[in-house]
């Protein structure tokens, strides 16, 4: 396959960026999208240009590092991570736009690489259960009903890639935050910190500059792990409940 790529190039956070156009040839349909970019980068290096910077690591769809907007869609046309997208989803001769996540809470580091440390700070605000090493009772001391355990797992699958934010017209992090709140708040082990968790995480989310939620649902459509949209309404309920309880 022969393709035309229009790629966002930006030297660093302060520099202005622009789209640059490249031709790549000899692309196999079996390549992953990132391997196609590897091919471009090998050519760029040999011609003395700087290769296109992008985040990637496991290339198995689980680490959450890869983060490209492809033809306007977070992670591209298939419902998966960028690393699991293959070139057979494209046609010979296509022109493909490749951009970084666009959100004010995710400033660009270089080219297609963005800074997602705001997600880490949301987790630091309460996305944990306080259980210092060595304090745990026997694992069977507290049975967890299977539906609760399954619900916790469904939300815990979030890989923290940020596609939800990139897809949202408001740049909101509600789906990411609600995934962690619902994972921990549904479990009996998470109950003692249930109220402070949701209040503190939501407050940090707002402080980090993420937009508000208007339930457009783009987040859940882009999510490669299928975190469901009702996760957001469940968090809103938790937040209202916590506010009532704390006020009392």
């Amino acid at each position, binding site marked *: 396959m022969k393709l035309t790529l229009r790629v966002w190039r930006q030297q660093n956070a302060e520099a202005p960026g622009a789209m640059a156009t490249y031709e790549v040839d000899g692309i196999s349909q079996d390549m992953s999208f990132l391997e196609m970019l590897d091919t471009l980068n090998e050519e760029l290096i040999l011609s003395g240009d700087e290769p296109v910077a992008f985040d990637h690591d496991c290339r*198995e769809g689980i680490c959450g590092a890869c983060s490209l907007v492809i033809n306007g869609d977070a992670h591209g046309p298939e419902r998966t991570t960028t690393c699991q997208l293959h070139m057979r989803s494209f046609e010979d001769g296509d022109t493909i736009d490749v951009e970084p996540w666009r959100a004010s809470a995710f400033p660009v580091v270089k080219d297609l690489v963005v800074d997602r440390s705001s997600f880490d700070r949301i987790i630091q605000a309460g996305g944990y259960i306080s259980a210092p090493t060595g304090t745990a009772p026997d694992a069977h001391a507290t049975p967890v009903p299977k539906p609760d355990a399954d619900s916790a797992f469904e939300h815990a699958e979030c890989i923290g890639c940020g596609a939800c934010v990139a897809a949202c017209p408001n740049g909101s992090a509600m789906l990411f935050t609600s995934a962690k709140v619902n994972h921990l708040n549904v479990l009996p082990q998470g109950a003692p910190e249930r109220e402070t968790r949701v209040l503190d995480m939501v407050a940090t989310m707002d402080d980090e500059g993420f937009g508000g939620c208007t339930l457009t649902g783009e987040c859940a459509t882009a999510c490669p792990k299928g975190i469901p949209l009702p996760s957001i309404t469940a968090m809103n309920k938790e937040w209202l409940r916590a506010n009532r309880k704390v006020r009392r």
Partner: protein
Amino acid sequence: MSDYTNYRTGEPLVDAKAPTGPVAERWDTRRFQAKLVNPANRRKHTVIVVGTGLAGGSAGATLAEQGYHVVQFCFQDSPRRAHSVAAQGGINAAKNYRNDGDSVHRLFYDTVKGGDFRARESNVHRLAEISVEIIDQCVAQGVPFAREYGGLLDNRSFGGVQVSRTFYARGQTGQQLLLGAYQALSRQIAAGNVELHARTEMLDLIVVDGKARGIVARDLVTGKTDTYFADAVVLATGGYGNVFYLSTNAMNSNATAIWRAHRRGAYFANPCFTQIHPTCIPRTGDHQSKLTLMSESLRNDGRIWVPKAKGDDRPANRIPEDERDYYLERIYPAFGNLVPRDIASRAAKNVCDEGRGVGPGGQGVYLDFAEAIARMGRKKVEEKYGNLFDMYARITAENPYETPMRIYPAVHYTMGGLWVDYDLQTTIPGLFAIGEANFSDHGANRLGASALMQGLADGYFVLPSTINDYLARNPHTEEIDAGHPAVTEAVAETEDRLNLLLAVDGDRTPDSFHREIGELMWEFCGMARTEQGLREALDRIPRIREEFWRRIKVPGTGEQFNQSLEKANRVVDYLELAELMCLDALHRAESCGGHFREESQTPDGEAARRDEEFSYAAAWEFSATGDAPVLHKEDLVFEYVHPTQRSYA
């Protein structure tokens, strides 16, 4: 023939920290003997932890909970992305929740035997003891393990054992355990007890007066090289499987931290012990950047075969039954498709070498579910393996319900690593290595679902106990002076290396050299090794290294985000580590576990151990690049599990 193979044997190594006495009491004994640090004094101590995977994340969180000041590093943008996240299957623990005869002693026994009698009994027993505490700890943190309808934890079986002791969270056990450790670490970051440096890569170790006192690290965003000082340094930087270029490791997993520590004096043990996993999706062409694992569980129901005739390129479903060779069932009738990983991998290589491999390049064998679908029905197969079949279909664009999967072995895990004593301390005082970065618990072959167990045992429970002893004996005295010759030398060496990489301005990319060394290692130090092949590899590696420094091309500058520079610097270390791996494989003229020397096999092709000569861990001391290292042997003593020859026919 290079001088490199002309190594000298130095003083034997003795693990001075392991207590004697009954094996089941040794960990208690050591914990009681270890000196403690007064809680009020702990905050005066700084501990550097490099890496945020299962071992590093759990260690950083636990040390901070104890009151130490922790300075932690990861090269990823977030600690949550460490490669432990990709582990699929599960984590072993001797809980005996199934009442099926499991016990700490049985887990200990299975692990020593599974490692083909090349691991330390004391360490493995401790691992088995701690396994039960790990599950308790993770459940308390909210790790959503699979549960049954009664609300209790579910278990499944894994290869090489006869009990159900594996706890799991669908096919994402590693992810869930890692998030547990990441969240515990996040809590300590918020509390101000852990100072985290993300996108920061360790490039050298600082040793002052014979003790590890800090690291040199590069901020990958600004390119700035900086020094960080501490009272002890913990390496939790994972394995070195990426020396093979193609592996199931993440793209950025690398050997630099442990290799630089090795160059500073930490011995490297059993570098040739690598695990090659039999069921991975084969490569499709030269563009391939990494390999993807397909869970071992598939071999419960899938049948492995190749055509009987060489070069038979008909589609699988056009090859009649009597022209297929179900070679594992034929060669190993007792175990069939469920032989251990090393046996299955070598058998696949053999049939492909005969020219009977399938798929592009003939580097693949079929894993066929037609019989299972006929027996159980498609729905049942979907229930058991649906997510794996989907993943396979996404990568290959083939439907495994209709055509057999194609699989091939791939590098997956490294049992070797920095030599550590019972306290997990390396041969450099104050430098500790935990998780896959050390060599300690798996011998020559790791059992499935044991990597997660070891990473968390080291990080949550072992290191936080043993490091107290070192810190109590080495109380914090004075700050390291940034002008100390040991510091300025380490910084200068690092900067010189990076500058040289940028200055060569040759005509080959870092990836091209990485691929070249990887292919060489795969051919000569992969699934089957021979003296002749290893000698050829040892002859070629110095020449590749010489060519690297003549022809490498790294664009850009060092004062910026520069992924080519990161990569090139990692390849520098692969080019040295590869040489040591080949030498270790050459010197160990026996077969054991994942190390198969063709000269040492039984008449029916099984690995033949030579206990009388090789019942030791080989710890190598660095001398200089390209110069012969010094071998130090640590004899292995088996008091409880007596070595036997494995047989699967």
